[in-house]
C-alpha cells in the first residue's frame, strides 16, 4: 500500500511557521521530517512519522505554490487562490525575504551577477547555510535590486512599496541594494569585525546625505521627486570633495584647525597627547590627513569601493591601537568637524558638513572591536 496522492486544502491556507522556517532554510522534506522528529513533535502530539511526513509534504507543496507569488508580494495580496489572513501574509513575506547575517556579509557589496551566484556553493560550505537557502537569499537581493534599480524616490520607500516589507527589512534591503550598486568592499579581512548592521547604518547615512536624492533636500523625504536617485552617489559632490584637500595642504589652515581642536579638547580627552600627536604632519597616522585624503580620493570608482577599507585603515585602526575610548572618539570627531567653521580661510563649509556629518556617524559606528 503506497500513497499515490495525499493532499489537504483548507479554505484558509494553513501555514505552519516551523515548517516554513525549515523550508526557507532549504531542508529537503526528509531532512525537515527528521528535524521535526528531533524537536520532539511526535511526543507532543502523539502523531506517527507517516503523519508527519504527509504534513510536511503538504506544507512544502503549499510553500512551493506560494513561492511564485512571494516573488512579487503585491500579487500575494491580490491573488484569489490562497485565502490567507493579512497578518500571515505579512509573516510569509517577511520571512521569505529575511536573510542570514552570515550570508549577507559574504555577498554585501558584490555585484549581484551570475558570477557571484556561482560562488554560492563556497558560501554555503563556508557558512553552513544550505545552498538552497543561499540561492533564495541571493535571488531575493537580486530581485529587489532589479525592481528598484531604475526607480526614483526614496530607495527604502520604493522597496517597501513593491515588496511590502516592514520598515526595518526595507531599510536593510536598501542598504544591500545600495552596497551592491556601489560595490563597496566589505570582505577584506580587516573588515571582518564589522556586522551587517554596521554597514547598513552607514549605508543609510550615505543614502541620506551623499546621493543624488539627497541634494539640497532634507534626507529621505519622499516629496523630493526631482531627479531623486538614492542608488548612486552624487558624482558632483564626490568631485567637489577634492576641494577639502586644502585643509591638509594649507599649512596655516592645518595649524589653525589643529590648535582650535586642541584648545577645545584640552583636559576633556583622556587620549589628548595621542590626539595631538596625530595632528602633526609627519605623524604616520595623521588622522586629519587620513580623513581628508579619503574624501579627496572619492573621485575614483576604485577608491569609492575601498571607502570602508580606508576608513578602517586610516582612522579606526590608529585610534584603536592608541586605545581611544569611544567617548573620546566622539568628542574628537565632533570638535574636529565643528571647528572647521571657525577657519575663516576655508570656503567649503557646506561641502565639509555634508561630508563630515555622514562620515562622523559612520566612523562612530565602525569604531568597535
Amino acid at each position, binding site marked *: 500500500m503506497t*500513497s*499515490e*496522492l*495525499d493532499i489537504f*486544502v*483548507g479554505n484558509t491556507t494553513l501555514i505552519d511557521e516551523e515548517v516554513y522556517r525549515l523550508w526557507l532554510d532549504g531542508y529537503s522534506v526528509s531532512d525537515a521530517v527528521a528535524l521535526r522528529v528531533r524537536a520532539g513533535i511526535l511526543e507532543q502530539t502523539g*502523531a506517527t512519522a507517516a503523519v508527519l511526513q504527509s504534513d510536511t509534504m503538504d506544507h512544502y*507543496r503549499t510553500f512551493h505554490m506560494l513561492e511564485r507569488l512571494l516573488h512579487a508580494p503585491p500579487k500575494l495580496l491580490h*491573488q484569489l487562490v490562497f485565502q490567507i489572513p493579512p497578518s500571515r501574509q505579512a509573516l510569509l513575506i517577511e520571512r521569505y525575504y529575511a536573510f542570514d547575517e552570515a550570508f549577507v556579509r559574504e555577498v554585501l557589496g558584490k555585484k549581484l551577477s551570475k558570477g557571484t551566484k556561482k560562488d554560492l556553493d563556497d558560501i554555503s560550505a563556508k557558512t553552513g547555510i544550505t545552498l538552497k537557502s543561499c540561492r533564495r537569499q541571493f535571488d531575493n537581493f537580486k530581485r529587489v535590486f532589479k525592481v528598484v534599480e531604475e526607480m526614483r524616490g526614496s530607495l527604502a520607500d520604493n522597496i517597501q512599496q513593491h515588496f511590502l516589507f516592514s520598515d526595518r527589512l526595507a531599510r536593510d534591503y536598501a542598504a544591500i541594494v545600495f552596497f551592491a550598486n556601489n560595490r563597496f568592499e566589505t570582505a577584506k579581512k580587516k573588515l571582518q569585525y564589522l556586522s551587517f548592521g554596521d554597514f547598513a547604518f552607514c549605508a543609510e547615512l550615505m543614502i541620506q546625505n551623499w546621493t543624488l536624492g539627497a541634494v539640497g533636500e532634507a534626507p529621505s523625504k519622499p516629496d523630493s521627486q526631482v531627479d531623486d536617485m538614492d542608488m548612486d552617489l552624487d558624482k558632483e559632490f564626490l568631485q567637489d570633495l577634492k576641494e577639502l584637500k586644502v585643509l591638509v595642504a594649507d599649512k596655516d589652515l592645518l595649524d589653525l584647525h589643529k590648535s582650535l581642536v586642541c584648545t577645545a579638547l584640552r583636559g576633556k580627552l583622556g587620549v589628548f597627547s595621542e590626539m595631538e600627536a596625530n595632528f602633526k604632519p609627519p605623524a604616520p597616522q595623521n588622522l586629519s590627513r587620513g580623513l581628508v585624503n579619503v574624501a579627496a580620493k572619492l573621485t575614483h570608482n576604485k577608491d569609492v569601493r575601498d571607502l570602508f577599507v580606508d576608513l578602517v585603515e586610516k582612522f579606526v585602526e590608529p585610534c584603536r591601537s592608541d586605545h581611544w575610548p569611544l567617548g573620546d572618539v566622539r568628542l574628537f570627531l565632533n570638535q574636529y568637524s565643528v571647528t572647521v567653521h571657525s577657519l575663516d580661510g576655508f570656503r567649503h563649509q557646506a561641502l565639509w558638513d555634508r561630508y563630515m556629518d555622514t562620515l562622523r556617524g559612520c566612523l562612530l559606528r565602525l569604531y568597535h572591536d
Partner: protein
Amino acid sequence: MPGKLKVKIVAGRHLPVMDRASDLTDAFVEVKFGNTTFKTDVYLKSLNPQWNSEWFKFEVDDEDLQDEPLQITVLDHDTYSANDAIGKVYIDIDPLLYSEAATVISGWFPIYDTIHGIRGEINVVVKVDLFNDLNRFRQSSCGVKFFCTTSIPKCYRAVIIHGFVEELVVNEDPEYQWIDRIRTPRASNEARQRLISLMSGELQRKIGLKVLEMRGNAVVGYLQCFDLEGESGLVVRAIGTACTLDKLSSPAAFLPACNSPSKEMKESPLAHPPSHGCRSTHNSPIHTATGSRLTQNFSVSVPTLIYTGMGSGSAGKEGGPFKALLRQQTQSALEQREFPFFTLTAFPPGFLVHVGGVVSARSVKLLDRIHNPDEPETRDAWWAEIRQEIKSHAKALGCHAVVGYSESTSICEEVCILSASGTAAVLNPRFLQDGTVEGCLEQRIEENLPAGCGFCHIPYDELNMPFPAHLTYCYNCRKQKVPDVLFTTIDLPTDATVVGKGCLIQARLCRLKKKAQAEANATAISNLLPFMEYEVHTQLMNKLKLKGMNALFGLRIQITVGENMLMGLASATAVYLAALPMPGGIQIAGKTPSDGSYEQHISHMQKKISDTIAKNKELYEINPPEISEEIIGSPIPEPKQRSRLLRSQSESSDEVTELDLSHGKKDAFVLEIDDTDAMEDVHSLLTDVPPPSGFYSCNTEIMPGINNWTSEIQMFTSVRVIRLSSLNLTNQALNKNFNDLCENLLKSLYFKLRSMIPCCLCHVNFTVSLPEDELIQVTVTAVAITFDKNQALQTTKTHIEKSLQRASTDNEELLQFPLELCSDSLPSHPFPPAKEHLESARSNSGIPAAQRDRCSSWIELIKLKAQTIRRGSIKTTVTVEKASPMGEGNFRNRSAPPCANSTVGVVKMTPLSFIPGAKITKYLGIINMFFIRETTSLREEGGVSGFLHAFIAEVFAMVRAHVAALGGNAVVSYIMKQCVFMENPNKNQAQCLINVSGDAVIFVRESELEVISTQQPTANCQQSCAGGEVTT
C-alpha cells in the same frame, strides 16, 4: 422579451504573458449569452488591461436566463494567427432572478482555463432587468428560491412544507462524441463544462416549475448531482423539498439561538419562530397490529425496517391506518404525494413526531445508451422503482414519510449501483398543509410528551413489530415504547436529550469480486451487496456498543463499485439518547471452550473490550443517572442475557436464513470468535484509536454536548489515493488497507488542525471511489470549529429509562429477500418479468434472471413516470470520530482569527448551515459549479498531488470569487459533490472533475449585531457565544 441582461467588462489583472517577445498581452473579451456574442476592444500591451466597456445588453427569455450561463472569454489578440484563448469565466445569473437575492453581480473573477488553471482575474458587472411575465404557460420558473441547506434557512419561516421534488435530464457526454477525437482537450473540456452548466440550469428551471405547480416558492435541501455514465451519456439529477417560505422581517427578533448553536444546543439551530413544543400526540399507546410479511431486498440497509402497518385495517400496499387522528390527517396530506420524502435533515420544532429507523434501497443496473435525451425514461423509471421501495419500507415501519432522504450512484464501466436512503418518520401535518389543523394540535402538544424523547417513540406496533426488536418504556417520559437502538439519517433533533458527547463512527469494508462483464458482473455485485450491508451494519452496531452509546444520526452508507472490488463506508454520529435504554456490553464467546490457553485469550480480549467500553464512557461523559426500575408491562431485559451475533461470512443464502440475528433481544452482544476472520474483526474494533485529546468529530451539523463555538472555523478538503499491491489481495488485507487509509487520514487531520484545539471536526464527509483497479481514493470534506473549553460542558439532564433493544432488522431482511420478489417492488414494473431485461440486476429483487437481455424494447414498457431525484443535501452527521475528553492542560490559546480586511475580502466556507458566532442576514442564491482541469505536464506541476492540490485551491478560489461578486461573505451548506480524478502517469497526464455547491450568504458577526439589536427587546439571541471573535 421578459428580460434584459446587461454586462460590463471593467478590467483585467495579473494576465499571463501571451506574447513572448514583448512579455505582454493584447487582451480583449468576448461576452456570450445564448447565441449572442459581444466583444470589447483590444487593450494593447498590458497585463492589467482597463477595458471599461459599454454595457453589453442581451434581450432574452427568462427561460434562457435560467438555463444559460453567461460566458466570458478572455483572448489574446493576434494579428497574424488565430487569437489565443487565455481563459473563461462562467457566471450563473440565477441569483439575479429572484428579488430577495442579489441585485448585481460585480467583482473580480478568476479567469479559468481547463489546461492552465487560473490565469489572472477579470472584473465584471452583471445586472438583469426582469419584466413581469403574465404568460401562464411559461416555461420558466424565475423567482423560485433554491437552497442547498437541508433545514429551513435561517432568515425564513416555513409556512408549508410541500414535499419532494425531483427531476433529471440526460445528454450525450461530449467527451464521448465522435467529434472529440478531432478536437483539443481544451475544447472538449469546455464543451463539457458548458453542457453541464446548461443542464443544471435547465434542471433547476424544471424543478422550479414543479414547485410553482405545488404553489411553493422555494426548494430547500436541493441537491444536484451528475452521473458520468461514460458511453451511455451524462445524467444530471436533482432532488429537493418544495416549501413555501416567508421571510422573517426582523431576523433578530425571531431567531433566538438560531445562528449560533453556541449556547445550548437545545435552543435549536433551527430558526423557527412560532411553534413550541412539538409533539403531537396520540394518546393511545395501544397499537393493534396486523401482521404482515417483511419485504426485503437486498438492498435494504441497515436497521431498516420492514414491516407493516399498524392499526386496524390493513390495507395492503397503502399500509394500515395509523393510530390517531393526527396520523390520519397527516397521512391524507401525504397520501396525495407520490413520494412523501423530505430531503431535510433538521426540522422546525414540532415537525418530526416519531422516527422509525433508516430505510434504504439499492439496485444494480446495467447502463445502456440513452437513446433519446428528451425522454429520459429509463433513468426515471429506475429511480421511481427505488423510491417506491423506500416508501414501502417506510410503511412497513408504520411511518408515512421519509426524512433525511438522499440518493446516490456508483458507476464502474457499465454497471451502476443506485442507492437511496432516508429515515422513516411520522410527521406533524401542520406544516404540510395550510395550517388548518394547527389549532387542535397546539393544545395537545406539551401535555403529553416531555420534549426530547417523542421522536424516539416507536411508530410501529409493538405486537406486530417489523423485526424482532426489544422495546422498553421510554426512559424519559415512561409513557411510550422506545427501541433499544435508533439509527437515523437526520441530524440530531435540537430538542433531543443527550447524555455526554457524541462521536464519529465509521464502518469500513471491502469485498473482492471477480472481474466480469455485463450481466455476470451485475449479478456478482447484487450477490455481494446484502453481505456488505449486513457486515457494515454489524460493524456499526459493534462500534456503537463499544462507545457505550445507543443511537446513530446522520448515517450515510456508501457502497462503491470498482472493477474488482466493492467498498462500503458508513459514517454516522453516535450519541447516547437519554430516552433509550443503556446499551449492554459486548460479550465474547469462543467456540472451543476446552482449550485452556484459548480461554485465557478470550477472557483477555473480553477484558480489553470491557475496558474500552468503560474508557469510552468516561471519554464521552456518558453517565446517565441510574433510574429506579419501575417499568411496567414491557419485557425487562435481563441484564446478562445474550444474543449470538453470528458473522455473515457464510456465502450461501441458506446459511443466512439460519442466522439468529436478533441481537436486539438481549442486553449484551456476543461476538463469537470462531475463526481468524472474527478475531481480526474484534481486533479492528479495538484498533480504532480515539482522537487526540481536545478533538472531537462528528458527521452531523453540530456536536451534541458541545456549545460555545467560537468564530474560528476552517473548512478543508483532503484527498488520498493509495495503490494496493496487487499481490495476493485478500479481503482481510484489503480491509486492513482501507481501514488504515481512513484512520491515517483522520490522524493527519487531527495533526494538521492541532493549533485549533479544543476543536470539533463537524460534518465530516467521507467519499470513497475506485478510480482504477488498484487505486482507492478517499475524499474528506469537513469543517473544524474551535470552541471555548470552559463553557463546553453542558449539563445534560438525563431522563433515563430502561429500554429494549431494537433488533437490527437488516439481518432479517437478508433472510427474506427471496420472498420479496413478489412483494411490492413488483408493481412498479408492469411488464412481464421475462422482459425484465432492463435492469440487469435488480439487487432488491435478487433475481438473476432479471438481468437478461437488456434490449431497448423495454422503454416502451415502462409506464411509470420516472422521477429522478437525487437528494442532495449531504448532511453528514457529525460525530466525533473518536472523541476524547480534554484535560485542562490541553486548552491552548486559539489564535484569534485575523479576519481583518485585506484587499481581498475574506469569504468563509462551511458545510454547515450556519456560521458560529454570526447571524446570516441574507441568502444570495445557490452556488453550483462544475470544473474540469486537465494537464499534459503532470510531473512539471508537482505530480498528482501538486496537480490536485492546486486545482482544489483554485476551485475554492472560484467559489469565493463568485460569492464575493454576489455581495456575500460566506458559503454555507457547502459540499463537494464530486471529485473524479484520473491519471495516466506514463503519458504525464491527469484529469479531474469537481462539482461543488452551497448557498451564498451575507452574515453579520453577533458582536456587531449586538450594537444594532440592543434596542430590540426581543433580541434574545445570544451574543455570548461570540467569544473569541474579532470584529473585523
